[in-house]
Each structure stands twice: as structure tokens, then as C-alpha cells.
């Protein structure tokens, strides 16, 4: 690094003032006329002057102290006029990307009525922008769960300050990796050596990123205590109610009491008091009737100071409880028998053989003509999916189960060993498991010659293909069979939201169904949020950003078709955790620096102060009246 660039001058042209040294020295010696003071006798003074102590080098030096003081004073004035500054580390960088964390925790205040972390970061960035030199450029990037570039590399202060003012807190967790990846991509177009990161450190310690530049991690001062809601979900009870579970957590230093209020469709549904100890969490359960679809809101009112407000509110949409609609082909007697024993199930076709619906929650069939039925979960028994017909054939020589995916939801707690199967699904020659996977099928059960059970997910739909017919096996007689049915029902319940509902976190809303395909819909959210989205071929709106906590209403052709809530629900954001060190791949780590980036430091004020002190010393020593012989006689 060029040491000459450690210091700079805003007004170097003022150095011509150094020429004043010449007349100063000239006038000093011309005007060096000591005031005469008549004294009675020089007897004693002569002896004093002859003393060795008086003639010491220091005392000789003091004889010209006035000139020295005047030179120092003039030097300080000249130096101050040139407006010198010490180049901070930031100033020695010509191109600097600045990453600003704007996740939910950045809205936390340091004290009641204080400033938020984001405001503190913006203030520091403003100082950097204010001190930019003509050859320096800055690029502003904010990040929450995704990164956003606000400006290109520019030295235009107006553009930078306007962009900085627009950066606002998003009620979502932060993802520093996304911001670093964007910065790395930026480096391909505009090379730079260092990146400045302003954050409260509320992200994972480990970052899956290979750091290719120097990262200056500036950690902001810690915020005050905070409590909030970190989890909200609901489980169906056997008696047709919803048990709404809410979890409350706080930052490590938070210890407070709070009031929890629950409303259902804006009507009070419950109120409780909760007390949070340091490092502890509390869980509460509220029972809500499932007779109709309802929007439940949980609000937390801490008694004391709470630094973050966005996590004190959580929303959950509860559907109306109903029976699970299950279609089971009449030929699958064993399945229908097992299903009839389970509660909250409406079985199709009914006992009269009527089946008035075409869409079901669960479809179980062994008939090819039922493949047209719509089901969130489907189990096809003894049917080979058409896309796989060229990969395998089903023989009659029998086979056995070799292995199965025990962690699959459908196969949990099922023992398939020693099961006798008369059908023999056989993969073709040179057909491997990867061939099935390339077509979207995952093998759950492996037979001796090929797969026995396959899983395929298509959007929200989940289809299982049992390549052998269970009636030609010992499976219906095994204990695992009713468990399989139970797993299917439970899975269908979960997929349809009839068994368990979780509150939607902020970030991106789940797919929302609308009335028609390719329909332009308007989304209205909290804080004046509006957006237009187009539905897909499945009449779904997907990927709708939800940056703030609150309700999001979807309007299709002016009619409100859906409303969903989004909540922060992040234990990390609520806990205001702050890491000191970020670990990157290949053992690299970056430690936080809390003192702020080293900025330009103007030195003129210091020089002016030095000049003033010199002036004061000179006045004290030389400008006091030497009239102590005023009483001299005539």
C-alpha cells in the first residue's frame, strides 16, 4: 500500500501560505527589541546570568522560544488551511460494495425511542458516502432472505443517498450467503478487493460460500431486550376442534411478563398472561372451533420495553374441519375394510355404489379407468404408470422385497421382509434406478428384479404406484397393511390441511388457488403493499413475496378470492442472536469489527486546537505586561 496515500489534503493549493514563514522570520529578527527595564543594580542578575544552569542548552533554546512558538502557530494555520485528512481504510479503496442487512432483526431498537440497527447502519454508510473522493465508487446492496442491488458502482452522492433512504427493514430472516453470491457475481464485471458488510450478525455462523474477496464485517451495536412469537401451528382434535399452539421466546437478556391475546376473525377468542425467563421459552395452547374456516391472530403485549415489534403478531388460517374424502375402488375390499375402521373419513363409492365427486383427498384404485380421478394423494395398485411401461414388465413368477425406504412417510412402522409377492415387476435390461428418477419417480421398495413401490410428486399431488397387486401377495394379511392405510390417511390429512396447519412465515406466500387460469390477480398486503400476479395453468398464484407481517388479500377481477396471513416466526430473528465470526468454506473465517470502518478523519480541527494552545502559551509568557518596575524612582 502506498504510504503516501495515508494522508490527503482537501485544499492543497493553500500550501502557498508557507511562504509567510519568510516574512515571519524576517520580522521576528527585525522587531526583536526587548523592552528596557531600569533596575537598581545588575549585581545579582549578572551572577545569575553567569550561572551554568542558565546557560544550559535548554535555556539557550528557550531564548528563541517565541520564534519557535510563532513558527508552530503559523505552521498549524497553514496546515489547517490545506484541510488535511487522514485517509481511513475505506478511503484507500477505489471500489467498494456495501452490504446492508435489512432483515427483521435490524428493526430492533437499542432503547425506548432509540434508533434501529438499520438506521445506525445507514448513518455509517452516509458517513462513507459523504467522505467519498473523486476516484471512489460505491455499490449499495441490501439483503434479507434475498439480496437486492440498489445502485451500480457510482460516486454520485445524490444517487447513493436516495437509494440508501429507500432501504427499509423487511420482516424476514436474513441470508448472508445470497448477498455474498450476488457480490461475487458483481466482482466478475467490476473487480474490487474488499466488501463492507453492515449487519447485527443475526445469521448462521456457518456460511456455505467460498470467500474470494476480503470481507469487512462491521457488527452493529446490540439491541435491547426482545420477546416474540416464534412458532404458531394448529392440530386437529378428535372432537372437531383446532388446538392452536403458540411458542414465545426472547433474546438472551429478555426477562419480562406479557399478555397474549387471541382473536378469531377479529373477535376475541382468548387471553392469557405469560412470563418469560432469560433463555427460556413458553408454549400456550388455545382451542378454536373448526366449524368454519377462520383467521386466527395471536398478539403479544410485553409489559416492558420490547425492541422488535414485528414478531409480536402471528397469523394462521384455519380451514373448516370436514371428513377426508377417500375413493377406494370397490374391487379393493381389503383397503375399503381398513379405511372404514378409521374416523373422519368419507368413503367413495358409498354403500349404494354412488360416487358423485371427481376430486378426492385420497384415491386408491387398481382400475385403469380411475386414473382420471383427481386426488391429492393417490395409490395405484397393480398398475404400471404409462411413462414407465418401457422400463419394466410385470411377470408372474413371483418376487420378494429386498429393501425399502423406512423413512418414507407412507412406509413408517411397516415391516416388509419375508412378504410373499406373486407378481414380479422386472426392470428392463440396462435399466437403472436413475432411469426412474429421471422421469420423476422415486423407488421406495426394491424387489428382486425391479422396483415394487414408486413415488411421484406433481405439484401438490403425490402419487404412489404399487407395481404388484396386493391381492396377489401376503401383504393384506400382515400387520403392516392397516399401518400403510393409516399412513396414507394421515398423509392425506396433512396435505389437505385437515390434520395440521402451520402459520405461513414471511418471505414467500404458499401457492394460492384462484378461480381461473392465467388470470391477472392483485395482491394487497400490509403497509400499502400491492402487487399483480398471474395465475398458472393449475389456477395457482405462486411465488408471491410477503415482506411484512400481516394479511395478504388476493383479488381476482375485483373480487376477493383468498386471504392469507404471514408472520415472522423466526427464533433466530426474535432471539436477536449476534455472531462474532462467520465461518466460510475452506476454513476461512471473518471476525466482526464493531468500531466502525476507518473513515477519513479531518485534521484541521486538531491543528486549529494546537494553534490555539500555542497562541495561549505565547500570550501567557510574552504578552503579560512587564511593568513590574513601575515603582522605580526618579
Amino acid at each position, binding site marked *: 500500500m502506498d504510504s503516501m496515500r495515508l494522508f490527503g489534503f482537501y485544499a492543497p493549493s493553500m500550501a502557498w501560505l508557507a511562504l509567510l514563514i519568510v516574512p515571519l522570520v524576517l520580522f521576528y529578527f527585525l522587531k526583536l527589541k526587548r523592552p528596557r527595564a531600569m*533596575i537598581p*543594580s545588575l549585581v545579582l*542578575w549578572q551572577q545569575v546570568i553567569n550561572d551554568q544552569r542558565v546557560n544550559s542548552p535548554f535555556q539557550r533554546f528557550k*531564548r528563541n522560544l517565541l520564534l519557535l512558538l510563532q513558527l508552530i502557530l503559523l505552521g498549524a494555520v497553514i496546515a489547517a488551511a490545506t484541510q488535511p485528512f487522514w485517509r481511513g481504510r475505506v478511503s484507500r479503496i477505489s471500489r467498494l460494495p456495501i452490504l446492508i442487512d435489512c432483515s427483521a432483526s435490524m428493526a430492533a431498537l437499542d432503547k425506548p425511542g432509540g434508533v434501529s440497527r438499520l438506521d445506525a447502519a445507514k448513518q455509517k454508510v452516509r458517513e462513507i458516502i459523504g467522505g467519498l473522493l473523486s476516484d471512489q465508487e460505491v455499490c449499495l446492496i441490501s439483503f434479507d432472505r434475498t439480496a437486492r442491488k440498489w445502485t451500480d458502482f457510482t460516486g454520485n452522492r445524490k444517487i447513493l443517498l436516495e437509494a440508501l433512504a429507500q432501504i427499509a427493514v423487511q420482516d424476514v430472516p436474513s441470508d448472508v450467503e445470497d448477498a455474498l453470491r450476488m457480490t461475487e457475481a458483481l466482482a466478475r464485471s467490476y473487480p474490487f478487493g474488499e466488501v463492507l458488510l453492515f449487519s447485527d450478525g443475526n445469521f448462521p455462523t456457518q456460511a456455505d460460500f467460498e470467500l474470494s474477496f476480503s470481507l469487512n464485517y462491521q457488527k452493529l451495536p446490540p439491541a435491547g431486550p426482545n420477546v416474540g412469537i416464534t412458532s404458531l401451528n394448529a392440530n386437529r382434535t378428535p372432537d372437531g376442534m383446532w388446538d392452536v399452539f403458540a411458542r414465545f421466546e426472547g433474546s438472551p437478556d429478555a426477562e419480562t411478563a406479557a399478555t397474549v391475546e387471541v382473536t378469531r376473525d377479529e373477535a376475541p377468542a382468548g387471553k392469557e398472561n405469560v412470563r418469560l425467563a432469560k433463555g427460556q421459552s413458553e408454549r400456550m395452547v388455545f382451542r378454536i372451533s373448526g366449524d368454519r374456516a377462520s383467521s386466527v391472530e395471536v398478539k403479544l403485549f410485553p409489559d416492558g420495553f420490547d425492541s422488535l415489534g414485528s414478531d409480536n403478531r402471528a397469523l394462521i388460517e384455519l380451514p373448516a374441519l370436514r371428513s377426508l374424502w377417500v375413493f377406494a375402488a370397490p374391487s379393493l375390499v381389503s383397503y375399503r375394510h381398513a379405511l372404514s375402521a378409521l374416523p373422519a373419513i368419507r368413503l367413495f363409492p358409498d354403500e349404494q355404489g354412488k360416487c358423485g365427486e371427481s376430486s378426492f383427498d385420497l384415491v386408491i384404485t387398481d382400475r385403469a379407468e380411475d386414473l382420471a380421478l383427481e386426488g391429492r394423494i393417490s395409490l395405484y395398485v397393480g398398475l404400471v404408470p404409462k411413462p414407465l411401461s418401457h422400463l419394466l414388465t410385470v411377470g408372474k413368477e413371483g418376487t420378494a422385497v429386498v429393501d425399502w425406504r423406512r423413512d418414507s412417510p407412507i412406509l413408517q412402522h411397516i415391516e416388509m421382509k419375508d412378504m410373499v409377492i406373486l407378481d414380479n415387476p422386472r426392470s428392463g435390461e440396462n435399466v437403472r434406478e436413475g432411469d426412474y428418477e429421471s422421469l420423476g419417480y422415486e423407488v421406495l421398495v426394491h424387489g428382486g428384479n425391479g422396483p415394487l413401490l414408486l413415488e411421484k410428486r406433481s405439484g401438490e399431488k403425490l402419487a404412489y404406484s404399487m407395481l404388484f397387486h396386493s391381492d396377489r401377495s401376503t401383504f393384506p394379511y400382515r400387520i403392516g397393511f392397516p399401518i400403510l392405510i393409516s399412513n396414507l390417511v394421515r398423509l392425506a390429512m396433512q396435505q389437505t390441511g385437515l390434520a395440521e396447519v402451520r402459520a405461513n412465515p414471511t418471505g414467500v406466500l404458499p401457492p394460492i388457488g384462484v378461480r381461473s387460469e392465467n388470470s391477472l390477480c392483485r395482491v394487497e398486503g400490509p403497509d400499502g403493499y400491492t402487487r399483480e400476479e398471474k395465475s398458472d395453468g393449475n389456477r395457482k398464484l405462486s411465488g408471491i413475496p410477503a415482506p411484512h407481517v400481516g394479511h395478504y388479500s388476493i383479488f381476482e377481477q375485483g373480487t376477493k378470492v383468498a386471504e392469507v396471513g404471514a408472520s415472522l416466526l423466526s427464533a433466530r430473528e426474535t432471539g436477536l442472536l449476534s455472531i462474532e465470526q462467520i465461518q466460510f468454506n475452506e476454513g476461512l473465517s471473518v471476525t466482526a469489527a464493531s468500531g466502525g470502518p476507518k473513515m477519513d478523519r479531518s485534521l484541521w480541527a486538531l491543528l486549529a486546537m494546537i494553534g490555539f494552545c500555542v497562541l495561549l502559551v505565547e500570550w501567557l509568557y*510574552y504578552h503579560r505586561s512587564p511593568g*513590574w518596575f513601575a515603582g522605580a*524612582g526618579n
Partner: protein
Amino acid sequence: MEGATGEPQVTTLLDNRVLSRLERLRIHSIRRFTDKKRGEHLAGRSGSSNEFSDYRDYVPGDDVRFVDWNIFARLNRPYLKLYYQEEEMHVALLVDASASMTFEGKLERAKQLAAAFSVMGLLGTERVSAAVFNSAGHHPATLGPCTGRASLLKFFTFLEAVQGGGDAPLEEGIEAFLKYRVGRGIAILLSDFLTFGDMKRGFNRLFSSGFETFGIQILGRAELDPEVAGDVRFVDSETEKTLDVSPGELLGIYREYREAFQRNLAQLCRQRSGRFVSICSEDSLQWVLFDLLRRRGWIR
């Protein structure tokens, strides 16, 4: 002349009340350097005063009038009764009136002290003379010797007329005075003793001439505790020599030298059976006369 209270003053140098107190005081000599002339001071040798001195054996040839007959009656042996000799003492008032004494009222204080000593001397039947040193090479202005109360006004007039100025070194003034000295006694030196010359010679000359030296150094406040603000050029009031002085540690060194200078003068006086005291010109005259000098036994 009128004093502060409006009453007529005998002299401008001394207040009447001070004058009346001085009439009851006498100069106290230790060495008793006296003249042969009869006076009121008891000489060291036997004489014919009424003051008893000692007894001694009678030897043939002694005046039988001095035999103590009472003792002879008791012891049947003649003893001679001896008496002190009362002689006259010469009080010489040597006033330094050079230019250096014109600062800060030093000369005024010297004139007042000289007047006070002259009162005590004349009323004590001493022979009092005065000498004032001004310019080098010139004979000092002198008065006396005089005796008796009648000479008081003469002394007051002489001292009142003393003007400061000149460059007479004190030791040269002493030399000049001793050329015309009359008798032995006390030499009272009233000066600031700020001279480039050697005072040792002056004191020696006074001692060898039969004078007990009373040195009274009168310094101004600025000489005792000077203040130097900024670079300044000092000009000697007598020699016009200059000296450039800058502030700093000078003041501390100056005080060291001044104190050493005073100690040296006091030692020179003591070694020659004399006395020395240093006063400030701002010190009260009454305090100097009736407190300081009385406590030190200079006057009684």
C-alpha cells in the same frame, strides 16, 4: 511642617511621636570602641566614673584616695577600689545615596533610619557624624561630628537635603569617609550593598579604624522577589550597563544568589565584630526601630 494629625513636625523624616520614643533609646555597642574624651559610655579600662568596676591590691604609689577603708578596717589590708572610665563614642552614619537607592523608597528609608540613629546618638551624648555617598570620585557630603541636642536640627536639615543619584560604589565611599574620620565608635552603614566592588575591603577598613560596623541593607520588594514577564533588557541605574533576561528558572536562581549574597554580607560583619540586618523598604519604620532593632539588641 505638619504631620498627619495637623500638629507641627520637627522634621519631615520622623514623626514627632517616633521622635519622642527615640529620645528614650540609646545605641547599644558591643565592642565599646570609644574615644579618650569623657563621655557617657563606659570604657573597658578603669577610670573615674561612679560605676564600680573591681578591687585590686594596693601597691605603693597608688592614690590612697581610692583605698577602700571599710575593707581595710575589716581585713587590715589595703585594697584599691576601681571604677570604670566613661568615654565618648563616635557614631558615624554612612548613607548610600547612589542611584540604586532611589528605587522603591530605599533612600527615604535610609534617611529616616539615619535621622533616628542621629537622635539616639546626640541625645546619648555621643559624637555623631554623617556622610552621604553619591558620585564616584567625589568627596562624600559630610556633617559633624556634632554632639548634644542642639545639633539635632542641623542633622535633620542635612539629611532632608540629601538627593539620590550618582554611581558611587559603597566601598569607595567608605574609603573616602575614613580619610577624614575622627575617633572610634560605631559606623552605621545604610545601603542596599548592591555594588560590583569588594565589600570585604570596606569592612576591613572600618574595623581597623576602630569602628564597630552596623550594616543595614535596604532592598525593595522587586529586589527581594522579582518578576520577569517575557524577554526584557535590564539597565543598571548606575552604570547604564544592560543585560538581556528571559523568564524561566532565573527567578529561582536569583533568589538563591540574593540569599547567599546577604549571608555573605552578614558573615563579613560578624567576622569584624559587626552586625548586619536586611530590611525591605516597605517595612514599617516603627517596626524596624522599635521591634526589629530592639529585639536584636542594636538599641536599648
